[in-house]
């Protein structure tokens, strides 16, 4: 008998070729990295422009009698203090000037009463609510207030400043585990999100790919040439590669964008953990593609995809309901049991690993169960396709499902 390999390889090649000819697939795959890189240039340009920008802020300080003193604030990088006097120093006059706006105009004003360090209200005039400069200037004024308060006490400024120093701590980990750095945790979460996105993104193409032969009446020609199992295997391989190509391209685009934006990439990623994440992602993806293939193999065309499929599409998202527990108590017994369920393990186990809550045997068992489930799903999909492939133009009924299960 001819090897299965030689049967499903042409199917996989054909599906990939057809997918690469789909404009929507190519555009959606390439558009994301192009957008990411493009956005990095835009963000970089805005940041560079902001770095050069000096904001003009009016500072009005009053003495105890309420007269404008003409004093300013200590210098602050990126800010230029203006000290209006006379009528132009009133809040109303400043608001009118700030409202007019314009290039190089005064962006805001801060009015400091003499007792601002002792509880008197500091007033701000902003052009719009949520002005970005306000919090920065507020912190600057607060520091000034602390220094003024310290000056009223029999301690030096330096000693007073030491009061606000943060404490120093060290940590000794009693049960150290690899792959639990912040970078590993971020990688696990990102991988879980990417897996769900990829499953969602691939599902539509998979539906088209599985039902294409039925809709174009080519089914009998194909299965007279190769076994239904080889046919479904070729589809699963093709759509796994297609589905994973998108996140890989997107990730590469994201990394390039991050580098362009001068973000520091995490150096503490553990290779072993990353390998486990990659394995779970790959086998998990095969599992979901096989599961959806099984459901899709029973439908006659795209329009009649069953409600069951609509519910199943949410399966990869369900572990996110337990995300809090997975982060806070990754070694909880019920979570450990739940994370062995093949539909949940591709997301839950990597997160638990990154949180230090999964033992190596759990990781291994989860992989074995996931691989076994993926294998069973592909076999079931092959059987469902063989039994249901000649179902043209009629809806799937319960008696038919029973008949199929008997044949399977």
């Amino acid at each position, binding site marked *: 008998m*001819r090897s299965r390999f*030689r049967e499903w390889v042409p199917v996989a090649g*054909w599906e990939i070729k057809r997918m690469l000819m789909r404009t929507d697939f190519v555009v959606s795959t390439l558009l994301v990295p192009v957008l990411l890189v493009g956005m990095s240039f835009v963000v970089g340009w805005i940041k560079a422009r902001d770095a050069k920008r000096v904001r003009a802020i009016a500072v009005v300080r009053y003495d105890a009698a309420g007269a404008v003193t003409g004093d300013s604030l200590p210098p602050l990088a990126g800010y230029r203090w203006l000290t209006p006097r006379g009528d132009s120093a009133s809040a109303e006059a400043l608001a009118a000037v700030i409202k007019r706006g314009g290039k190089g105009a005064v962006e805001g004003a801060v009015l400091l009463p003499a007792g601002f360090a002792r509880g008197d209200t500091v007033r701000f005039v902003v052009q719009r609510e949520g002005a970005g400069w306000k919090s920065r200037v507020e912190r600057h004024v607060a520091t000034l207030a602390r220094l003024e308060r310290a000056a009223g006490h029999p301690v030096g400024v330096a000693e007073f400043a030491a009061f606000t120093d943060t404490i120093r701590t060290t940590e000794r980990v009693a049960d150290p585990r690899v792959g639990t750095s912040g970078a590993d945790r971020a990688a696990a979460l990102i991988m879980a999100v990417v897996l769900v996105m990829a499953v969602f993104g691939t599902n539509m193409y998979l539906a088209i790919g599985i039902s294409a032969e039925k809709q*174009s*009446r080519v089914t009998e020609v194909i*299965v*007279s040439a*190769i076994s239904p199992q080889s046919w479904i295997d070729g589809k699963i391989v093709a759509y796994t590669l297609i589905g994973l190509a998108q996140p890989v391209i997107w990730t590469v685009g994201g990394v390039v964008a991050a580098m362009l934006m001068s973000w520091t990439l995490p150096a503490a990623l553990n290779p072993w953990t990353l390998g486990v994440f990659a394995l779970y992602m790959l086998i998990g993806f095969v599992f979901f593609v096989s599961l959806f293939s099984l459901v899709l193999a029973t439908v006659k065309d795209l329009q009649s995809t069953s409600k069951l499929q609509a519910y199943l599409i949410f399966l990869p998202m369900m572990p996110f309901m337990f995300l809090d527990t997975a982060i806070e108590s990754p070694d909880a017994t019920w979570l450990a049991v739940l994370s062995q369920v093949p539909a949940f393990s591709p997301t839950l186990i990597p997160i638990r690993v990154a949180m230090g809550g999964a033992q190596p045997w759990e990781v291994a068992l989860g992989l074995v169960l996931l691989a076994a489930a993926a294998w069973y799903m592909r076999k079931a999909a092959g059987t469902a396709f063989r039994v249901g492939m000649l179902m043209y133009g009629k809806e799937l009924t319960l008696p038919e499902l029973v008949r199929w299960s008997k044949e399977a």
Partner: protein
Amino acid sequence: MTEAGPLLAVQGIRKRFGDFEAVRGLSFEVRAGEVFGFLGPNGAGKTTSLRMLMNITRPDAGSVTFMGGPVMDRRLVGYLPEERGLFEDATLIDTLVYLGTLRGMSRADARAEGKRWLERLGFTERLTARLNTLSKGNQQKVQFLGAVIHRPALAVLDEPFSGLDPLNQELFLDLIGELRARGAAVLLSAHQLTLAERLCDRLLLIANGAELLSGTLDEIRLRAAGGASEEVKLELRRGAGGGSGDPVAAVARVAPGVECRAGEEREGLVTLDVALPAGSDLGPLLAELARAWRIERISTSALSLHEIYVRAVRGADPAAAAAPLAPAGEPEAHHA
């Protein structure tokens, strides 16, 4: 498989869908180098049977052996199903390459063979055209090529002529004839009985999932005639060299004992009525007469396949018997 053994042997296959038995114990054999006609009315069980042969559905009982073994090597079989279509957005050459590689060809071989076939059928300028730009008839040609591109030992063709105009029907007759000429077996299901009559070496006529008639066309005619004689009417003209002798005596020389009567000669034309046993080979008789006479016209009362088909199916199906009968037994004219 032995030299003389059948390529495909079907033994007592049955298929039931719920309470309905679609195929009821069919048995037949298909040999290398022959076109085997698989005929029957709509709903007779032809497509269900062919799907069982192709292992697309499984028989409830019975067996199918290919080249003496129970497993059909899909590389050696070509299949043109009745329910057929194509990837409409794919190109002609890509489609043939794909179907060829599914049947075990290398991509290079499939491309070369596909290109050769497409060029031969007049698609030289359209190799990379999409299939949805072709007419239905042209799409059917590509479907046919997809079934035979890998040079199968057995080609199973389910209604290959349906939807074709007469010119394309003739083209398909030639193509199927070529398959037979290079030693392939062709299992052909068709409704166009005049085409099947011209093409098939042996026939199986089924109705309600069971066999009605089988054998060569002559054997089927003999059985359908039920032993009655076949009336042959000839018009003979004395040749330029001058016909001589008695045509009745000539008939007696090659077919002694048959009833033969010659009419009066008028303007060099003699009519001859011969009552031959049904299913007789006319060849020797015509050869003998042609030695002295020019045969101007022959007509025979032999039943056409169409007539045999209608009679047999109506006999097997009481519901069909209610329909008006087509004129049967009317001599079918052949011009010499």
